C-alpha cells in the first residue's frame, strides 16, 4: 500500500494523491455526464417549470453539485500538471495556479447559487 509520509514540501495535490483524485473525480464525471446527457436528450424538459423541478429536485441538485466539485478538483489538478510541465517561472506558475483556483471556486459557487438559492 502507499506509505503516507508527512512531508513539509507543499505539492498542491500532486503526486500519488493527485493521481488518485484525478482518476476518482474523472470516473464520477464520466458516469454522471453520460447519464445526465442521455436523460436530457431522450426526455427533454417540456417547459421552465419542468426543467426547474427536475434540476432542483434534491437528489438531482446534490449529484449535480458533487459533479461541479469533481470538475473543479479534476480541472485544478489537470491545469497544475500543465503548468508544472510548461511554466518555468515559479512566480508565473503561482499566479496561474491562483487564477485557476479562483476560476474553479467561482464555477462551483455560481453552480450552487443556481441550484440552491431561494427564489
Amino acid at each position: 500500500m502507499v506509505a503516507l509520509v508527512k512531508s513539509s514540501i507543499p505539492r498542491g495535490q500532486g503526486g500519488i494523491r493527485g493521481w488518485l483524485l484525478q482518476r476518482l473525480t474523472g470516473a464520477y464525471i464520466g458516469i454522471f455526464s453520460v447519464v445526465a446527457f442521455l436523460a436530457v436528450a431522450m426526455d427533454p424538459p417540456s417547459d421552465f417549470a419542468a426543467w426547474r423541478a427536475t434540476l432542483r429536485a434534491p437528489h438531482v441538485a446534490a449529484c449535480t453539485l458533487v459533479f461541479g466539485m469533481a470538475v473543479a478538483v479534476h480541472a485544478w489538478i489537470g491545469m497544475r500538471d500543465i503548468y508544472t510541465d510548461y511554466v518555468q517561472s515559479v512566480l508565473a506558475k503561482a499566479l496561474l495556479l491562483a487564477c485557476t483556483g479562483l476560476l474553479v471556486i467561482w464555477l462551483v459557487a455560481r453552480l450552487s447559487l443556481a441550484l440552491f438559492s431561494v427564489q
Partner: protein
Amino acid sequence: MSQSRRPKYLSLYAIAFQIRLPVTGWVSLIHRLSGVYLLISCIAAVCWIEVSLRSVSDFAMATSMTKSPFVRVALLLSIWTYAHHLLAGIRFLVLDLDVGASRQAAVASAWAVHGVGLLMVVLSGWLLW
C-alpha cells in the same frame, strides 16, 4: 548549450510543428488541450444553467439560443472535445492497469479513441436533433 542530463520539457511549438508525433502522442496532446478547452467552456455552461433556471422568459431565451445553427455547431464541437477527452481518459485508466500497453495495442486504442469519439458526436447530434 551545456549538455544536461535532466529531462527537458518540450515546448508546445516543438511538439506541434517540429516533431512528428505518432497517433498515441496526438491523443495525449489533444487530451490535454481538450481539458483546457472544457474548463473554459464550463464558464459558459454554468452561466447557461443559471439563466435557464431564473425565470420563464430567461428559460425561453436560453432554449431558443440552442436552436441557432451557430450555437449548435459550437455545441457539437464541445461534445466532440468532451468525447475525446473522456475516451482518452478511459484509455489512460486502462493503460494504468497495464492492459494494452504493447506498442500495437496502444496505437490501436489511440485510433479507437478518434473513431469512437466521432461516433459519439454523430450519435449525440442525432439524439439531440
